[in-house]
């Protein structure tokens, strides 16, 4: 699998068109179903343009897959939902503008759980994405298409979004690197909201270095997003192969019952490796972790129930037979949304409704405060925290799809990070029965430099990230 640097060399030697054509052929032959839309014509057109006119951007001529909940001007954007049938956005998301400036070429829109609601990419209206390591298994979710595309060699880079683990979970299941930045570091303008107060766009790649390069391109202040922060950063410069003196916090709550033995062992081995390189580790207590999952789902569903109210079939998307307006509205939505989306809208509506608002929504927000405080305390004793990304490796397709609770439980180690708004990177740290295992390195607010550096040092001294699924 080629890195950004290798691709740039090849583009100089051959052409961007050749590279793009290779990836397009790979996608065409693939059985993974990682893409909803392949932007073949526009990608080739742009590649030729870059070849003939030249471009000095850091990603000039390099193809990238974009999760299909990120608005792309002129390219269908579906959120993997029937309700957005036919929708072609008239505008680009902030990150797409940044990518275009940098010379990147959008090769297609990646599959995902419908409206990013899921951890397996099975709820897509366009069918599930398969895990490149074992096609009977899920790639994780909700950014499953983005992770599978990179793991399967169908794109060197991709973007996902992470509301409660949706970048890190598929990164872990597919054996690639995925970053969920601090809340506010990447503009959400153009990201179709699932749960606004929790989510961030995040980059995927096969190495920490490439993740950092992509992150440098797409991060930064955007005046169109009121929650966007204004800070000067250069993440690539944080990549130093040195962890001497680094203090690693190990939250025992993240190794709780239900964690696969091999997962636990791989992550603890990884911590040992870093200690051998000069880091120290200390156990930290995060006592409110047990409430995180419920609090997360209440907040996410509440916000989602309101965010998804705009899908009424009037201005865009699916329209059914007209009767009176309110009935048509209800019928459009009944026909356009899948089961999991409906369940979350119903639960979110309930959690915000008169009589239940305080019991669910307000209570969850108070727990969010307690969880933030857990992190603040932990970071008094540690520079970064290390924990499993997922409690187990990729599960079988269909295994959890009809049992919401067991599906939600898979997110137990990822959701607290979104509640607190801190950054976390997932990277491969082992294998179990041929399936990749991911660990996450969690940092303080805006301290992406520390987690990138830790991840980079680990990667430089191990070879888990170099293994590839067969046929990729």
């Amino acid at each position, binding site marked *: 699998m080629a890195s950004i640097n290798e691709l740039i060399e090849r583009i100089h030697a051959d052409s961007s068109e050749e590279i793009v054509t290779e990836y397009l052929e790979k996608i065409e032959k693939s059985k993974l179903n990682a893409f909803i839309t392949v932007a073949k014509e526009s990608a080739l057109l742009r590649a030729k343009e870059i070849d003939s006119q030249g471009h000095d951007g850091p990603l000039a001529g390099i193809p990238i897959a974009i999760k299909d909940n*990120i*608005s792309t001007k002129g390219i269908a954007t579906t959120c993997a939902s029937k309700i957005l049938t036919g929708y072609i956005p008239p*505008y680009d998301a902030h990150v797409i503008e940044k990518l275009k400036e940098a010379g990147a070429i959008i090769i297609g829109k990646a599959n995902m759980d419908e409206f990013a609601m899921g951890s397996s990419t099975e709820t897509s209206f366009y069918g599930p994405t398969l895990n490149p390591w074992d096609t009977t298994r899920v790639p994780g979710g909700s950014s499953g298409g983005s992770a599978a595309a990179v793991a399967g060699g169908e794109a060197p880079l991709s973007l996902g979004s992470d509301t409660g683990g949706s970048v890190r979970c598929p990164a872990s299941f597919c054996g690639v690197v995925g970053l969920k930045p601090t809340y506010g570091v990447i503009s*959400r303008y*153009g*990201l179709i909201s699932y749960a606004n107060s929790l989510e961030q766009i995040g980059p995927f790649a096969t190495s920490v270095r490439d993740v950092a390069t992509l992150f440098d391109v797409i991060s930064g202040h955007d005046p169109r997003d009121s929650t966007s922060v204004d800070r000067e950063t250069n993440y690539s410069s944080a990549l130093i192969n040195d962890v001497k003196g680094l203090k690693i916090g190990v939250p025992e709550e993240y190794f709780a019952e239900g964690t696969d033995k091999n997962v636990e062992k791989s992550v603890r081995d990884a911590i040992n490796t870093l200690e051998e390189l000069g880091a120290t580790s200390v156990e930290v207590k995060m006592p409110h972790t047990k409430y995180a999952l419920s609090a997360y789902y209440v907040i996410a569903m509440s916000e989602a129930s309101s965010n998804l*109210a705009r899908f*009424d079939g009037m201005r865009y998307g699916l329209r059914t037979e007209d009767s009176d307006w309110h009935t048509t509205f209800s019928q459009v939505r009944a026909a356009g949304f899948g089961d999991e989306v409906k369940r979350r809208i119903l639960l979110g509506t309930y959690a*915000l409704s008169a009589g239940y*608002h305080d019991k669910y929504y307000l209570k969850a927000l108070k727990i969010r405060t307690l969880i933030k405080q857990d992190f603040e305390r932990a970071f008094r004793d540690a520079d970064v925290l290390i924990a499993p990304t997922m409690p187990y490796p990729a599960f079988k397709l269909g295994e959890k799809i009809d049992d919401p609770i067991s599906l939600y439980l898979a997110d137990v180690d990822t959701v607290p990070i979104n509640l607190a708004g801190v950054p976390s990177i997932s990277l491969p740290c082992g294998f179990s029965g041929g399936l990749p295992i991911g660990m996450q390195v969690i940092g303080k607010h805006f301290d992406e430099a520390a987690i990138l550096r830790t991840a980079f040092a680990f990667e430089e001294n191990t070879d888990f990230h170099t293994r590839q699924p067969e046929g990729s």
Partner: protein
Amino acid sequence: MYENPDGVMIGLEVHVQLNKLKTKVFCGCSTDYHNDPPNSHVCPVCLGLPGSLPVINRKAVEAAIKIGLALNCKVEEHTQFYRKNYYYPDLPKGFQITQYDFPISSGGYIMIEGEDGEHRVGITRAHMEEDPGRLVHEGTIDKSKYTLIDYNRSGMALIEIVSDPDMRSPKEARRYLDKLRNILEYLDIFDGDLEGALRVDANISIMGGQRAEIKNISSHKGAERALLFEIVRQKNVLRRGGVVVQETRHFDEAREITLSMRSKEEAHDYRYFPEPDLVPLKISGWAPAIKEMLPELPDARRMRFVEQYGIMDDHAKALTSERKVAIFYEEVAKIADPKISAVWICDVLKGELNYRDLTIEAFRKEDMLSVIELLMSKKITEDGAVDIIRTLLDKGGSPEEIVKEKGLLKVEGDIVSTAAEEAIKENPVAVSDFKAGKEKALNSLVGSVMKKTKGRADARAAREILLGKLG
């Protein structure tokens, strides 16, 4: 003391569009859409396209604070926006960004001309929100086969001003609206003449019934009509032994009636929660700074006029009840006698304008000055001045031309003198009555002089001359 025999209680929710801002409240779309085709002033934000995000217009916050201060409200130092979740085709996101807890201002009042003199109307709150789009129905809302939507209006900055239920008659409601509009125009943040600039929802109850909310009122006159209709309707329901239920009704402007909107959608549960895409406002210090720069408001200007120009309070009130009239007056009073100017603008010009349904813009300040100058130099009579004003409004021209065309110049003294001699000769009875001490007999002689001069003589001058000749 006003008795309020039916126990009428009216509260108004007034939506004021900040149409003097250059852009909408949460996006950069221009507010200058009134002469443009539908859906030509929209962007991903105000069209509610997936993925778009709102950012607050700083000037809209400043305008909201101005309004809060002008309505004697407490302006908050901390405020934030909420989502009000409900569904209507004019609402592109399925929720409205508005305020809920911590509105930007609350707890104020304004004074209006009530049924029995000055009357205080409490202001519950004045908060910020976004305007929905505009719906067009074919015929009426209940009969139309489809609904057309124009989102040009969507996202315009609105201030919703909620009054206490302090008005006791439709007339008071109208006076409240007049006063409110007047204050807003003084603040120069709003042009009340633009379509959709000020829209009213009215809550009204009478003794023995629950309150009805009337929506879709778009003018002051409409508010009065809708409320008059509603009082009669509610009284009729009660008289027939029925129950006035709490409900929302739609005002049909053309038919001047209200229609019940009761349906399943009545079961509102707005599920308010803080807008996660906007951060809170911490605006301590803004209100005191804005207060410093606040323009003079109608009540203050009225007091100043009395003091500075020595005019009657009634005149000062009439002159300040419209910002444009007050400006007109001050410009005239700068040059002409302030008291005479007040009399002629209030007692004559305003009446003539009202009669013709015209505004002050229909009359030139220079013409007013000419008329006053002609009067002061005794070149024309008061009747002549009224004639000039009417002619200017109906036909145009200049005061000088009108004087010439109509021969309004006051007649010379010797003509009056000749007329007086003739009058004395022709009315011996009146002359002898006057000489016998009947003062009133002089009036008929004056009348005779006026008749002979076709009204162009000055009545007072004619009287003096007659007295001289008789004495």
